């Protein structure tokens, strides 16, 4: 049994093997592995006796269930209209400059991914950004460099 298979099994023991257990198991795999690999989706399908296409169909529906490798810290900048008007493009450009990656990419050391997200529900405090589960409201180019630098130091 591989490490991923063990992780999936452990999660299935915890959440059950019904179809409704699929989401919490996928979420658990993502929070541990940052994305759903082919191996992980195969393991989940086997454990829950579902088809792999079905698992992939569910994963591909949800933005937060990535099926391509992502960094340890996933930065998601809200792309919807309020945050756009409040300057999310400058925020993104600043992050791109600091991390030397383009929107949608992951740093070569596998530490950061830079993505956009649909409305995060913080329109009154835009532009807003998420790093993993942490919310950063009212970010500006200056504030964002500070935040990213803190994460860079975290290792």
């Amino acid at each position, binding site marked *: 049994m591989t490490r991923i298979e063990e992780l999936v099994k452990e999660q299935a023991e915890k959440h059950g093997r019904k179809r409704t257990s699929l989401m919490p198991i996928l979420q658990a795999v993502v929070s541990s592995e940052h994305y759903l690999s*082919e191996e992980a*989706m*195969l393991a989940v*399908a*086997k454990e829950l006796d*579902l*088809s*792999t*296409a*079905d*698992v*992939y*169909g569910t994963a*591909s*529906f949800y933005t937060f269930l990535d*099926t391509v490798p992502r960094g340890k810290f996933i930065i998601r900048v809200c792309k919807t209209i309020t945050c756009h008007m409040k300057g999310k493009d400058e925020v993104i450009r600043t992050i791109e400059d600091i991390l030397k990656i383009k929107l949608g990419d992951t740093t070569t050391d596998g530490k950061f991914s830079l993505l956009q997200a649909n409305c995060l529900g913080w329109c009154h405090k835009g532009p807003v950004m998420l790093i993993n589960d942490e919310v950063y409201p009212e970010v500006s180019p200056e504030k964002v460099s500070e935040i990213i630098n803190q994460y860079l130091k975290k290792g």
Partner: protein
Amino acid sequence: MSKYKVNLKINNIAISVDEGTTILDAARQLNFKIPTLCHHDDLCVAGNCRVCVVEQKGARLLPASCATPVSEGMEIQTNSLKVRQARKHIVELLLSEHNADCTKCFKNGSCELQEMSNDYRIGDHVFLDLVSEKDKVRDISSPSIEKDDSKCIRCQRCVRTCDNLQAVSALAVTHKGNKMRISTFLDKPMNDVVCTNCGQCINRCPTAALTERNYIDEVFDAIYDPNKFVVVQTAPATRVAIGEEFGMEPGSRVTGKMVTALRRLGFDKVLDTDFTADLTIMEEGTELLTRLKEALVDGKDVALPMLTSCSPGWIKFQEHLYPEYLDNLSTCKSPQQMFGPLAKTYYAEKINKSPADMVVVSIMPCTAKKFEAERPEMRGSGYKDVDFVLTTRELGRMIHQAGIDFEKLEDERYDSILGESTGAAVIFGATGGVMEAALRTAYELVTGREVPFTNLNIKPVRGMEGVKEASVKIKDVKPEWSFLEGVELNVAIAHGLSNAKILMDKVKSGEANYHFIEVMACPSGCIGGGGQPIPTNMEIRKKRAAGIYDEDEAMVIRKSHDNPEVAEIYKSFLHEPLGHKSHDLLHTHYTPRKRH
């Protein structure tokens, strides 16, 4: 189902129907046809295409009639101005994302969307054209199935087919919003996923998003090549279905007309897969008895229950999902693949032809047979055993192309040799048929008496129930089979892979104790195959099954072991079932595959 009646009016006509009936079905009872696309009688309700909307008095919105049950006092209009307008818009919206290159399309003339667009005289595009956004690269990775997303209207009949009927779910709904599409695991090519090539999705696709890979031109090229000797074999189930391609009733027995048509198309010899179906019974029956002997007498650890191996969709299903049971599969090749190597060895020798100059074509009710013919193991003759596999539909198309008036054709007979068959062979086409044919032969072999059923009709293994079970008590056996005295032979039959899964899970859990299991991948067996005429539903499949059993009763010889050509091939060529030559030409092995 409850017996409460609900009273309603459809187009001002009062009707009383069972509670739970949909508006669509109630309207059908009054002979009002409401157009549908995502709805299919074999599948669960989806209600996503919306073309079946109707107007309900007092309701603000137009309900989808396929997904709405009737209620007391309901007043429905199926063709009001509002309905007509909405329906027209819905079809226009569907067309705005459908690559309507109709004149170049394989489904031209048999496309449900095209028909609807014609019915409603859809002219100009009124909505934003979304076709340009779609992926126009067709997936032709599979030798059986072609997938063209630009034709897909996302009705999900295929998704429900693959799930409800086949329990495979190779296809699923992936992504969302305008990117939503019908796809495979990680969008892999069809040939790299769990797809069994059964083609049931093709049978139900309303457009040409899913079609069979067609090889009509290749076959005509071979026929017109003066250096090629082209022989054709026809599967049991084709002879009760091909008539539908020419407007005949489902289940019409047109064996003789089909033979004539094939001869007129220019095939050099018209032979019958039914002959190798009889041969399959000899080989598979002997294999079963050998396994039973090894288990009961020699105390060997043999793989039981034995599973039939005629259905290539079922084989691939096992390879992907139950690889631990591959030893249980009979090693017999399917009748199609037994025919191929015999045609290119035994037959080639008899007619004094070089196998290199021979082309073997199969007419099959099946799309998985196309994949099967491509398997690397299927080269027992030293050549590709079966060169081209055509579906019943493709043969229909060839006959149309050649300008042959099928219905008016006289009956002709198959050529000999490799053309003689029995009633036991033709019933391979219906679920339970292989089991019945095997029992007719095995029981007689062991006891010296015919199976104890009136007129050889083993009724318990027939019919459309998903999983069938039967037991046959074996007694007063011949001395050489004494170990079978008093044994109760337990058999089971499943058709449709979701039923096969139920059966396999029973075997796996140890709940069931069978000796022999027949599985056909397609609902109702080969008569409901993925290569059969469209449409299909239970009523049509029942008619085809009735045709099969009539054909059986009309045959002079009804037991495989009585087929004189089978006796001859054992005498002069194969020598004995499971013998050395059989092993080389008629038996095969299986490959475990991944789960995705």
